[in-house]
């Protein structure tokens, strides 16, 4: 029996009168590759925002590694081991790539008990992380000199720099070409092999199907399917949601 | 024992004041609430309206409200020009929040100092037949110089609301405020729509300014007191809601009026700014929600 990493029960989020998420139950096991799909506006990003602390949910409990997350704000959750990459890359544009990676190292890794990386160790770690995503040659450049796919990779590298146990990759591949999607997927597969549990939020079905060990489908704030990818896809409600009545 | 007469008159004066405050804030509700342009220089444009009315009143004995209406088109063009500049300098470049704020702050300041250089720091006022007399209902007093601006303020807000909800451009403005991306799909240019919206926003300053100089004599530095009032009303009113803005304006007017009557006018500025700080700390979503 795999160990449960994240346990979500009855999570709801409203924006004024609009219910974005309605009583979501979700459980994520260690080592899983979870695919999270759903039409636009179904609440996928809202769910990620609530789980990572960018937004606060109104109801529901979230337990991470057995510890409650309710009330903790984003940077506290990051320090506990939850990381996320943003849908639209949000690099620190006034800094070069090394410094972009340095921030999470200084403020997450060094903020945890026990760890304390020296300046040299940090510098080495930055270079290593950039090498892992093939950005080492642009290490001293600024984010504005990067291509779309390179920005996505920087975004992932920055999230990975926090040494997370669970990573939410929020539409990391939107707008990329086929080979670029393969590049990102390769990075994610490797990270998972190294022990990182990953939740992939994506619209690109081929990527989701090949990547996920389990698929969760959200429609209009409700979870309508949760299971092995091939099964979840064949769920009639899912078909209806994507293809219409 | 608080005199009931005094209290009721204070409340009534506050309501009338609130109507006027709403007209002063409608421009910012459009530019900041709907379009996210933090135009803190709004009071400078209002003062411009005040002094325009002062000039025509002094030179040609024109009625101030008439001046306000006549000057609106010119102010509209000015608003469009300001937005153009703001767009090319800041919005296009993206994330330059400080520079945008510094720009408007500079405008506010340059506006005030220019008025000081041209008109001096003395209080200026206008003359009109309705400044002075009041309507009396028993002990209830309705000064005409407050009643008329209040009525015309409500008319101005009503017209603006109608325009926003009925005309194509108006509804486009409302659409842009909700989702700038959606408009590009309709082949309407968000930039042009926002330009018009800003034009309307500044045009309201022409009339609002004429109301202000009717209600009280003006001098260049009173603009600063209005920053707090305008943004307090906008935030408390829910940012985009006209009814909310009206209620917030009335509330502020009443509290200010009561404070002024019973504790003295030197506390009035603190009231509006205190309102704002409390509003920001407690309910940034505003009274009517968003």
């Amino acid at each position, binding site marked *: 029996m795999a160990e449960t990493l994240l346990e979500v029960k009855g999570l709801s989020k409203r924006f004024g009168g609009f219910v974005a998420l309605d009583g979501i139950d979700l459980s994520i096991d260690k080592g899983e590759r979870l695919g999270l799909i759903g039409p636009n506006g179904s609440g996928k990003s809202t769910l990620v925002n609530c789980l*990572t*602390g*960018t937004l606060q949910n109104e109801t529901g409990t979230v337990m991470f590694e057995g510890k409650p997350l309710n009330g903790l*704000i*984003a*940077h506290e959750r*990051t*320090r506990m081991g939850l990381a*996320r990459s*943003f849908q639209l890359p949000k*690099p*620190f*544009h*006034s*800094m070069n790539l090394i*410094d972009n990676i340095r*921030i*999470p190292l*200084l*403020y*997450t*890794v060094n*903020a945890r008990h026990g760890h304390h990386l020296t300046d040299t160790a940090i510098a080495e770690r930055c270079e290593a992380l950039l090498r892992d995503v093939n950005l080492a040659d642009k290490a001293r450049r600024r984010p504005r000199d990067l291509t779309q796919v390179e920005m996505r990779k920087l975004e992932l590298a*920055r999230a990975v*720099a*926090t040494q997370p146990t669970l990573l939410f990759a929020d539409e990391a591949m939107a707008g990329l070409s086929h080979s670029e999607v393969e590049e990102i997927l390769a990075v994610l597969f490797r990270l998972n092999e190294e022990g990182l549990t990953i939740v992939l939020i994506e619209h690109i079905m081929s990527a989701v199907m090949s990547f996920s060990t389990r698929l969760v489908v959200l429609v209009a704030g409700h979870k309508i399917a949760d299971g092995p990818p091939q099964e979840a896809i064949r769920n009639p409600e899912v078909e209806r949601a994507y293809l219409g009545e | 024992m608080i005199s009931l007469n005094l209290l009721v008159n204070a409340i009534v004066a506050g309501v009338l004041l609130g109507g006027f405050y709403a007209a002063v804030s409608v421009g910012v509700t459009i530019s900041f609430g709907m379009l996210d342009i*933090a135009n*803190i220089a709004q009071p400078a444009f209002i003062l411009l309206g005040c002094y325009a009315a002062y000039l025509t009143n002094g030179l040609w004995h024109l009625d101030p409200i008439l001046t306000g209406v006549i000057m609106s088109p010119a102010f509209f063009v000015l608003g469009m020009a300001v937005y153009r500049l703001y767009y090319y*300098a800041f919005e296009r*470049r993206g994330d330059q*929040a*400080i*520079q945008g*704020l*510094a*720009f408007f*702050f*500079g*405008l506010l*300041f*340059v506006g005030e*100092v*220019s008025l000081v*250089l041209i008109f001096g720091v003395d209080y200026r006022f206008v003359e009109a037949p309705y400044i002075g007399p009041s309507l009396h209902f028993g002990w209830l007093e309705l000064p005409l110089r407050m009643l008329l601006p209040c009525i015309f303020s409500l008319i101005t807000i009503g017209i603006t609301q109608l325009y926003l909800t009925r005309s194509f451009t108006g509804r486009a403005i409302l659409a842009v405020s909700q989702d700038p991306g959606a408009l590009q799909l309709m082949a309407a240019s968000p930039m042009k729509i926002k330009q018009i919206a800003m034009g309307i926003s500044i045009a309201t300053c022409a009339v609002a300014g004429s109301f202000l100089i009717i209600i009280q004599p003006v001098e260049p530095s009173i603009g*600063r007191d209005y*920053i*707090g009032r305008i*943004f*307090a009303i906008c935030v408390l009113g829910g940012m985009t809601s006209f009814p909310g803005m009206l209620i917030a304006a009335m509330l502020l007017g009443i509290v200010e009026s009561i404070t002024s009557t019973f504790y003295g006018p*030197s*506390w009035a*500025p*603190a009231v509006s*700014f*205190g309102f*704002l*700080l409390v509003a*920001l*700390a407690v309910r*940034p979503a505003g009274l009517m929600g968003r």
Partner: protein
Amino acid sequence: MRAPVFWAIAIAVGAVFILLTRSFITNEYFYFAGYVVLEYIVLSTAWNILGGYTGYTNFGTGAFFASGAYSSAVLHKLPTLVHNVFGWTIPGVPLPVMILVGGLVAGAMGLGTGYLTLRLRGVFFAIATLAFTIVVQTLIVNWDYVGGSRGIYIIRPAMSPITGSYIQYLFTLMTILVVISVGIARSIENSRLGMGFASIRDDELAAEASGVPTLKLKLIATTLSGALMGMAGAPLPYYVTYLDPTSSFNLSYAVNSVAMPVIGGMTSWIGPVIGAILLGTIQQLATVTISSALNLLIVGVLLILFVIIAPNGIVGLVNSWRRREA
């Protein structure tokens, strides 16, 4: 260069500056005018810690500056008050102590305002700081102990605690404050704290997601910035000898403390220094020749021009010119 080296150089430069000026310049007007320029260096540097480094625009310089001035006024009147109430005679409070107290008071104010408003977007923070200035000004106007709207007269001590005139003493103190604030700014720039500030400025959500405790850092920036501004204001009563709300809360402090870093350059400690020396000197010279209103108009226009054309200020212009030459 490492921080301790910079501090050493800064202290050395400050000491040399004090020695040279006091040895060779006897014209009192130089010290009067120079004091204002030094004051602006401190204010601009302080503003820039929150503005340029962290990305939060503060229009309330006047409130922090004036609270330093008024806390000194309160302390100045303290011996009289204590004597009248308790009959004790206590010595006057020395100015350096007043400076520290001014810093504490303004720093506390920064912490308080920050706590109320920093959870909101930068725009609301900026508007709140404007609001805050008016609120504090209204409180002072209604506080009779410090003179209210009539103001208060402070008698400048006849004797300076060190050699020279009292104005030279104020000039010396302000030079020390310049060294302190520039030293602090430079130390922050290359430190973990400074990187945290920069990440907040660049993208607050991403910073928070990367583990940066954004609220805590913003509060540090606001408190530090406010404290330095309060320290710059503390000697003011002895400089002007007549302290009143209209001049101490003057919007020109707010405009200048925004314009000088913007024009000088907001990304480095040297920008505010350049901006303050440039604009401050021009204004001091201009006040003699043209009206102060016209003077301020020029500052406002320069602010608008720079913000549109050269948003990275003089430092930015120099950098891009150097990059082009390379």
